[in-house]
C-alpha cells in the first residue's frame, strides 16, 4: 500500500461528499425505516417503537393491494413495451439507414420533456369521453373504425394504458442503448460466423443476441427502477384518483392528506426494497465486472 501521505489529500477532498451521501442517502434511508417502525400516525405524537407492525398492517388495506397491483401491471407493460419498441427501432437502424441521425434525434427527444408535460398531453389523448364527447385518440379511433376505450379509467386495463405515455417517453432511450450495443458487436465476429455457414438469422441468434445481454440488463434495470417509483406521470395524468393509485402516490397522500408519517414511511420503505432487490446485485455485478477488465 502506498504511504498515507499520497492518498490522504484525496480522501480529504471527497470527505464532504462522503458525509453528504452518508447522511442524506444512508442516514435518511435508516431514519425512514426507523420511522416506519413506530406508531407515529399523526404529526404530534412521539412515536413508540412497534417493530414491523406497520409493514404487516398495511396489507389489510384494500387501497394498498390496489396500488401494488397497479404498479405491477404498469411495470410489466411499460418495461416490456419500451424494451420491445426500443429494440425494434434499434434493429431497424442497426445496419445503417439514410437519415439515421434524424430518426435518432426524433425518437430520443421525448426524453428531454418532463413527465408532467407528457402527462398533460396524454391525458388529452387518452380522454375517456366517447361518441359525441370523444376527443383525443377516441375521436381518431372513431374515424378509422376502431373501438373507443376508457383508457386509464378502465378498471382492469387502466394501468396498461397509463404505461403508454411512459413507453412513448422512454423507448427512444432504450433504442439508443441497443443501438450502441449492436454497434459494439465486432464485424469480424459476424463474418466468422458467416464463413462457418451461418445464415443471417443464425448470425443474429448466436452471435449478436448473446452480446446484447449486458445492454438488455442495463435497460431492464433503468426501466424497472423508473417504473417502480413512478409518480409524476400518474399525478399529471389523473391526479390522486384511486383508480390509478400506485405506491408512490399512496405515500404522498399518506403524508400530505392523511398526515400519517409512519404509514408514509412504511410505503416508502416498501418502494425502496422493491428497487434494491434487483439494483444491489446489479451494482455489485457491474463493479466486479469492471474490475476484472
Amino acid at each position: 500500500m502506498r504511504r498515507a501521505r499520497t492518498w490522504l489529500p484525496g480522501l480529504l477532498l471527497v470527505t464532504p461528499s462522503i458525509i453528504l451521501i452518508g447522511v442524506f442517502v444512508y442516514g435518511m434511508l435508516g431514519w425512514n425505516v426507523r420511522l416506519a417502525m413506530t406508531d407515529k400516525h399523526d404529526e404530534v405524537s412521539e412515536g413508540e417503537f412497534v417493530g414491523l407492525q406497520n409493514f404487516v398492517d398495511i396489507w389489510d388495506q384494500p387501497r394498498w393491494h390496489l396500488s401494488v397491483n397497479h404498479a405491477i401491471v404498469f411495470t410489466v407493460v411499460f418495461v416490456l413495451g419500451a424494451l420491445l419498441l426500443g429494440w425494434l427501432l434499434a434493429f431497424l437502424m442497426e445496419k445503417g439507414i439514410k437519415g439515421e441521425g434524424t430518426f435518432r434525434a426524433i425518437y430520443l427527444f421525448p426524453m428531454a420533456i418532463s413527465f408532467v408535460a407528457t402527462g398533460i398531453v396524454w391525458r388529452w389523448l387518452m380522454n375517456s369521453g366517447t361518441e359525441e364527447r370523444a376527443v383525443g385518440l377516441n375521436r381518431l379511433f372513431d374515424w378509422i373504425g376502431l373501438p373507443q376505450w376508457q383508457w386509464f379509467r378502465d378498471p382492469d386495463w387502466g394501468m396498461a394504458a397509463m404505461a403508454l405515455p411512459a413507453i412513448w417517453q422512454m423507448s427512444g432511450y432504450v433504442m439508443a442503448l441497443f443501438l450502441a450495443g449492436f454497434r459494439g458487436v465486432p464485424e469480424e465476429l459476424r463474418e466468422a460466423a458467416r464463413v462457418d455457414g451461418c445464415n443471417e438469422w443464425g448470425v443474429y441468434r448466436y452471435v449478436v443476441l448473446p452480446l446484447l445481454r449486458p445492454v438488455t440488463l442495463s435497460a431492464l434495470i433503468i426501466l424497472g427502477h423508473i417504473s417502480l417509483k413512478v409518480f409524476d406521470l400518474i399525478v399529471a395524468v389523473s391526479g390522486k384518483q384511486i383508480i390509478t393509485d400506485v405506491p408512490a402516490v399512496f405515500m404522498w397522500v399518506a403524508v400530505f392528506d392523511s398526515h400519517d408519517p409512519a404509514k408514509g414511511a412504511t410505503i416508502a420503505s416498501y418502494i425502496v426494497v422493491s428497487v434494491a432487490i434487483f439494483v444491489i446485485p446489479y451494482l455489485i455485478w457491474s463493479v466486479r465486472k469492471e474490475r476484472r477488465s
Partner: protein
Amino acid sequence: MTAVAGRRAGATWVRFGLLVFFVLIVLIPIYVLLATSFKPLTEADPGQAWNLPRTWTTEAWRVAWEKLAPGLWNSVLLAVPGSLLSCALGSMNGYVLSKWRFPGADVLFTLFLFGMFIPYQGVMIPLVQLLVGLNELTGLQGVFYGGIPGLVLAHVVYGIPICTLIFRNYYVTIPDELIEASRVDGAGMLRAYWSVVLPVSGPAIAVVIIWQFTSLWNDFLFAVFLTGPTSWPTTVMLNNIAGAQATPYSQQMAAAILASIPTMLIYVLLGRFFMRGLMAGALKG
C-alpha cells in the same frame, strides 16, 4: 445476385417505411400540443379536436405565460446554481476516485452509485423533517423547507452519484503520466487538478451540466414535497394549471410547451452531450 440485391433493397425500404411510421407516432403528441395551443376558445369543441386552428391565436400562450412565469423564474433559480454546484462536486470526486485513489475507493464508489438508484420516496420524510429543522435552527422561515435553497441542496446532494460517475469515467481516460509529470514538477493534488485536469474537462462538464439542468428542470417529486406556493418551480405550477378544471386545453398545452422549451432547446443545440449523459447513466450505473 440481382435477386439478392433486389431483396436487400426491398428490405431497406420496409425498414425505412417502418421507421417513418414510428416517427409519425412519436410526433402525434407534438402535433396535439402545437395545434391545440393556437386554438381560440370558440374552436374548443370535441368535433374539431384534431383539426388545425381555423383562426390562429396566441391568446392561450399569453395567459399561460402569465400564469407560469413565476414558476419558470423559480426553475431558473433552481436549475442554474444547482447544476453548477453539482458539476463542481462531481468533478472533484471524479478526479480523486480516478487519479488519487485511496484504500477502499472502490467500495465507496459502489456505495455512491447506489445513491443514484434509490427511490427518493425512501428519504423524503426524513428530508422534510431535516429541512423543517434547519428552518427552525436558523430562524430563516421558508428558506430550507418551502424555499429554493432547500430544493437546490436536495438536488445537489442526490446528484452527487451521477455527476461523480460521469467525471470519473471521463478522467479515467486521461493518461496517468500527465499527472505524474506535473507531480515531478512539484505540483500537489490541487495544482495538478487545476493545471492538468480541469483544462481538458470541457466535454464532461458539458455533459454534467446538461444532465443536471434537465433533471432539475423536469423534477416534480422533490418540488412537490419540499416547496411552497412562492417557490413552486415550473413542473408544480404546470401541474396545478393543468389540473384545474377551468383551464381550457389550449392554455394547458401552451403551458406544457412553455415549460418544456428550455430543456428542448438544450436537447436541440447540445444533443450530442445530452446523449452522452444518458449513456453514462445507463451503461455504467
